[in-house]
Structures are given as C-alpha cells and as structure tokens.
C-alpha cells in the first residue's frame, strides 16, 4: 500500500518547530506531487509546503493554528485505497526521520548545514526523560540508587510540587510487588507532548474586542522578531548617525533607465541605488561588513545585503547575495523577486540566510528617518527615510532638492563613529555623484 507521510520540514538551522497556518487541500482531496499542500509559519519564514508525493490526502493530523516540532507527521497521502482516520490516528505525532519524505521536497528538505547542527531531530524534539529532567530530591536519588531504581520509571508520577518525586512516592513505588527489582522499563511517552497550545494564525483580522482588553499570543514570527530585537539591543552598543543625501542625480538616473528596465519586466525603484552604493562602500570599509565573535572580529568577503520587507503579518529580511557583484539591473531584479516571494510566502531558508549588512526603509510612510536596530550578528544597518523636496542652501543660494535622510545604526564595539561617518560619507558621495 503506497502511503507517504508528510512531515513538518525544518525551515533553516536552529528552527525546531513550525505552525500550520492553512491547509490548501481538504481531507480526501487529490493532490499532485509538488502541488502546494499547506502553509506554515516559523521563526524565520512563512511559506507554502508542496506535497511530497501524488495521491489522495488521506489524513490531516495537525490542525490549522497548531505548532508542532519539525519532523512531526502532519498528514498522510495515500493512494485512496485506505480508509482515512483510523490508521493515521494511531501514530499521529510520532516523529519520523526525514528520509521518509519521498521525492525532493524542495523547500522542505533540511539543508546539509541544518542536519549538522541537529543530527537527531527526533531525539531533540521528543526527549526521553533523563534523570536531569525528573524532579526529585537528594533523598529520593539516594533511595533510588540504593534500590537500583531508574527514576525515569516514576516520571510523571511525582505527587510533590511541580510533579516532584517525593520520599513517599519512591517508597510506595518500592513497596509495589515486583518493583524493588532493577529498573523498570521506560514507559512509552504520552503523546501529550506533541502539539503545543494553538497560536493564532498569522494573518491579522480586524481587532474584535470582547472586553476592554484582548490577549493575543504572539505568532511564531512576532516572537522571533521580539526576541531578536531585544537580543540585539542587549548585544550591541548601538549608535546611530544621520546623513542628508541629495537624490537629484539618482532620481534622474532612475527616470532615464526606467523604460529600459521595464522592457526587461523589472521595476526600478530607488532602493537598488542605495544597495549598490552600500555594497561599494562595504568593500572599502570591511569592518562594517563584519561580525564580532567573542574577542575576534570576523571580516566577511561576501557582501550579502539584507532588505527588510514589511509584511502584513510581520517583517522579514531576504538577502541579496553577493550584492557587490551585481549591477543595478541585477540588484533591481533580485529585489523584485525577493519582495514578491516574501509577500507570497515563497521564501526559502536560503533566502534569509547569511546576510552581512541590512538596509531598511523606515521612511516609506512619510517618516523623516528611524534609528534601526542592528540585525545580529551584523554590526550595522542603514535606514532610508522618505525622499522629499526641501529647501537647501547651495553656494549661498537656496535651492529645491529631493533630499533623503539616511541613518546608520552601528555597533560601537567594533565600529567607531569616525569609521561609520566615513562609510556614510562614501555612500553619500556615490549617490550625489551618480553617473546619469
């Protein structure tokens, strides 16, 4: 009988769980291989997961809104010959090794690197109760040792505070007939540890109040953002510097090249100009393209620029790899593509990995400028304000120029103000002297 188990894929290193936000197929529905089957939300990305095999969606084991650990079986695709439910229900959340997935499963397959960091995802997600996890007391541990009892036999049976195994518990265990003998076999685990409390789906609905206050648990993405932001603030010594840039020339260049870009079905915005200027400046100021690891500054040859993309349900930072090797056209294409993929939840783990510098766009709703938080483990992030025509003084005359305010938040642990300002002056100079 052909049956394929569909598992929660690992969407990048250090991600151990995902939330199923939407099933795109109903139980009993026919599904083709690589056809989108469900949508998930993880710490890092939101995406669609394709079916690993063709067949009939025999069973859905994890409901929408539930968060499960990676490699948990979330559905079963059969050939339509088996009755649904009955079989699937027996081993609902049993984790399976990744090799169970038939076919390439493009997005789903754990990367080689991910496998390295978590060689035994099943063991990690479903730990067996080891002695460290079982709460007891010095006395209980001594009694256990004296009677050659494996305390895991009492796991979950403690009557003390927080399920602690007390003297009474272990003594009554010993008194049970036949139990004083060597360690009882470990109990199979209860499936209760599988799915966690259901988080809310990531797409926000208009706020409906039932009282004065609504309490809404964080989505996986919101939580990841929250943790990352606080971690960054705690890690880096943030300083922000501001530069005004006259955009006359890049706007002219943009206008001139727009038509040409459109013929190649690429949209040209101002962002690629800033990415290119930043990439060039990063080459000249390698410390801005570095990380701090303990007492070591790690300089990075690749210049991978992350672009913060605002989504209805959060924020994501896809990365343009080797941005210094791309021309304006290449950058524009990459930006278009990543932006679209982010909005359509089609980003892959690789798309958000290995950034070395980040650009964000706090001015897109008219804000003058913001002071962005560094995207760890990077050491600098550039903010783009809104471009607005302003009166500026040029050679004692007042002129009207399209001005943008740029900010650079940098980590003062590795970058001093002078370096940061030289870097920004470099960016400014490139933009203001852009060849039209």
């Amino acid at each position, binding site marked *: 009988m052909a049956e394929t188990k569909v598992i929660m894929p690992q969407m990048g290193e250090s991600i151990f769980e995902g939330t199923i936000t939407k099933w795109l197929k109903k139980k009993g529905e026919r599904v083709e291989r690589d056809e989108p089957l469900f949508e998930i939300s993880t710490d890092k990305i939101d995406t669609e997961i394709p079916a690993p095999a063709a067949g009939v969606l025999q069973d859905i084991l994890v409901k929408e809104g539930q968060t499960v650990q990676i490699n948990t079986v979330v559905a079963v695709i059969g050939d339509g010959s088996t009755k649904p439910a009955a079989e699937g229900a027996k081993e609902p959340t049993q984790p399976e090794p990744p090799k169970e997935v038939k076919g390439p499963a493009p997005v789903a397959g754990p990367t080689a690197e991910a496998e390295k960091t978590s060689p035994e995802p099943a063991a990690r997600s479903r730990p067996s109760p080891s002695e460290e996890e079982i709460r007891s*007391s*010095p*006395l*209980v*541990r*001594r009694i256990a040792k004296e009677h050659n009892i494996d305390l895991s036999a009492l796991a979950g049976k403690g009557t*003390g*505070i927080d399920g*602690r195994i*007390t*003297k009474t518990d272990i003594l009554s265990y010993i008194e049970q007939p036949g139990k004083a003998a060597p360690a009882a076999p470990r109990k199979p685990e209860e499936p209760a540890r599988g799915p966690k409390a259901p988080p809310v789906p990531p797409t926000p609905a208009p706020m409906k109040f039932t009282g004065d206050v609504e309490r809404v648990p964080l989505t996986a993405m919101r939580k990841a953002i929250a943790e990352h932001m606080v971690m960054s603030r705690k890690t880096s010594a943030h300083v922000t510097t501001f530069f005004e840039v006259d955009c006359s020339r890049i706007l002219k260049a943009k206008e001139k090249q727009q038509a040409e870009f459109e013929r190649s079905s690429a949209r040209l915005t101002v962002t690629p100009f800033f990415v290119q200027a930043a990439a060039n400046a990063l080459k000249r100021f390698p410390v801005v393209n570095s990380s701090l690891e303990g007492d070591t500054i790690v300089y990075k040859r690749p210049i991978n620029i992350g672009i913060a993309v605002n989504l209805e349900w959060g924020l994501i930072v896809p990365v343009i790899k080797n941005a210094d090797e791309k021309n304006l056209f290449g950058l524009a294409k990459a930006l278009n593509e990543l932006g679209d993929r982010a909005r359509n939840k089609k980003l892959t783990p690789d798309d958000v990995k290995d950034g070395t510098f980040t650009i964000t766009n706090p001015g897109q709703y008219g804000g003058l400028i913001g002071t962005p938080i560094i995207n760890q483990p990077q050491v600098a992030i550039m903010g783009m304000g809104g471009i607005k025509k302003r009166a500026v003084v040029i050679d004692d005359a007042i002129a009207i120029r399209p001005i943008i305010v740029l900010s650079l938040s940098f980590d003062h642990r590795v970058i001093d103000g002078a370096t940061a300002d030289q870097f920004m002056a470099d960016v400014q100079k490139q933009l203001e002297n852009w060849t039209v």
Partner: protein
Amino acid sequence: MSLTTYVEAIRQGIWEEMEKDDRVFVLGEDVGIYGGAFKVTAGMLERFGEWRVIDTPISESGIVGAAIGAALMGMRPVAEMQFADFISCAFDQITNFAAKCRYRWGAGVPIVVRGPSGGGVHGGPFHSQNPEMYFVHTPGLKVVCPSTAYDAKGLIKSAIRDPDPVIYFEHKFLYRRVKEDLPSDDFVVPIGKAAIRRNGSDISVITYGAMVYIALDAAKELEKEGIDLEVLDLRSLLPFDKEAVLESVKKTNKVILLHEDTQIGGFAGELAAIISEEAFEYLDGPIRRITAPNTPVPYSPPLEEFFLPKISDVVRVARELYAY
C-alpha cells in the same frame, strides 16, 4: 505536688549551688536588697549575706570584670545582666578576656553570665533582644538557652559547676508562664545535649528557647491535617548537639529551623550549613528557616507581634514543605 515556674527554677538552682559550695556568689545590679529586677535572687541576701550577694554599680563591664577576677582567684561567680541586651557593655570582658583566658594562660574562668533575653513582653528594642549569636561565634564560651523549668534549673547548675565561662540566656517571656513539677533531687542538665519535645515523622522543627512552644502549638494544629512534626529543643547552642540534629533530619528528611533571633547570622544559618554538609542525601526538600526579620525588635505591640515568629508561620511553612 507543687509547680515550679521557670524563674523560680533558676533561683532554686543558684540557691542550691550556693548552699553546697561557698565559692559560689552572685553579683549584679539590684540583686541584693531588691532581689533582682525579676526576683531571681530574692531572699538570697538574707540567707547568704552581703559578701555573697553583691549589689553593683550600673556597669556591666565592671560586673563581668569583677567576676572574672574573682573566678581567677578561685571563686564561682554568677553575674546577672539586668537585661541580656546590656551584655554588649561587657562584650570585651567576655569575648576577649573570659573566652580566651584558658587558651592563652591555661587559667579557666568559671563564671556564669546570666540575664533575661527575648521578646513578646513589649519591652522595645533594648529590653527584648536575643544576643546569643555574638557569643556563639566566640570560641572559648559556652552558651545555653533553656526552655523549660527543669532545664532552667538543671542548666544553671551545670553552668555554675562548669570550669569555663557560660553565657546563660533566660527567656523572660517564659519566666512565669512556664511551670512544672520538679524532682527534689540534685539533678543537672548537661550542656550540649538537645531534647526531643515531640516525636514526629514528617518534618523536624529545630528550635530553642520560647520558640519551642510555638513549634509545639503549631504541631498540635498540623496534627489535625495529618502533618506530623518533630520538635527538637537544642537547649545549648555552644556546643550544640549535632548528633541529635542529624538524627532527626535523617528520620524526617525535611527540616524547619526556627528561632526568635533575627535571620542573618542567626543559628539557623549555621544549622542549615551543617545539615547540607552532613545530611544532604537525606533531604527530601529545601531547608527552611523561620526567624524574626532583620530589624530591631519593635516596641509597638502589633509590630512586635508581626516581628516574632508565630504559630501561623510554622503552620504555613510546614504545609509548603510537606507538599514539596
């Protein structure tokens, strides 16, 4: 059968020792004509005369200094501090001289320094303290804190007969509230021996002084819930009965350390260290302390009531520990 109060038991103990041994004498403020602020020495002046019952000036340092000198000359002085709070005035004499005399010169100083300590009588910050730990920290001294009339009498006799300085802390709250029928023979209570006041199986409450009664009352209340407290009365703090402490902990596996003294540097901390060093593998829960907070003893009656460890404190902590 007549009941003897705690304060009367002390008086009897000193009296009997004075009858038996004419080296024994008392000195202190108002111990003679007035008979002592709490009447511990009442009638002694008439019986033993002014050479053995000496009214002194108001100078604790002088009282203890004189006692040390007399002891070095072969006497057995019993010096009264009118309130144990004022023993601090004699601190140098006790800790630097009496406590170290045998160590430095081989000359024992067989003095007893006794006085009323403890709160619960609205005495305020200078008439309610428990200064035992200053002396427990001093090698060369012995420190006792009786809780019953029997122990009060038995320990004052042991203290007087002891060849080294003994600091004898009476609890003034117990003076006339505690009474019992005492045997008529010449009994003593050895210094350094604890007594089990209540046998129990669930939790050991290790305490001394007036708190013994708080523990016993709490035990009565907890008995209704099926929580069985053991109450161990240390009686002596220096030396203390380590074997009895460890034995009780090994029996019940859970322990509450209770004293009226404030918490930081209190005897409970020392006991907790000993227990975790020597009986760690017998513990089925954290060692819990119940003590006065780290403040002076308040004068205001409601504040003093809050300050002193209460039955309800023991009941609460015992319930938590029982459930642990």
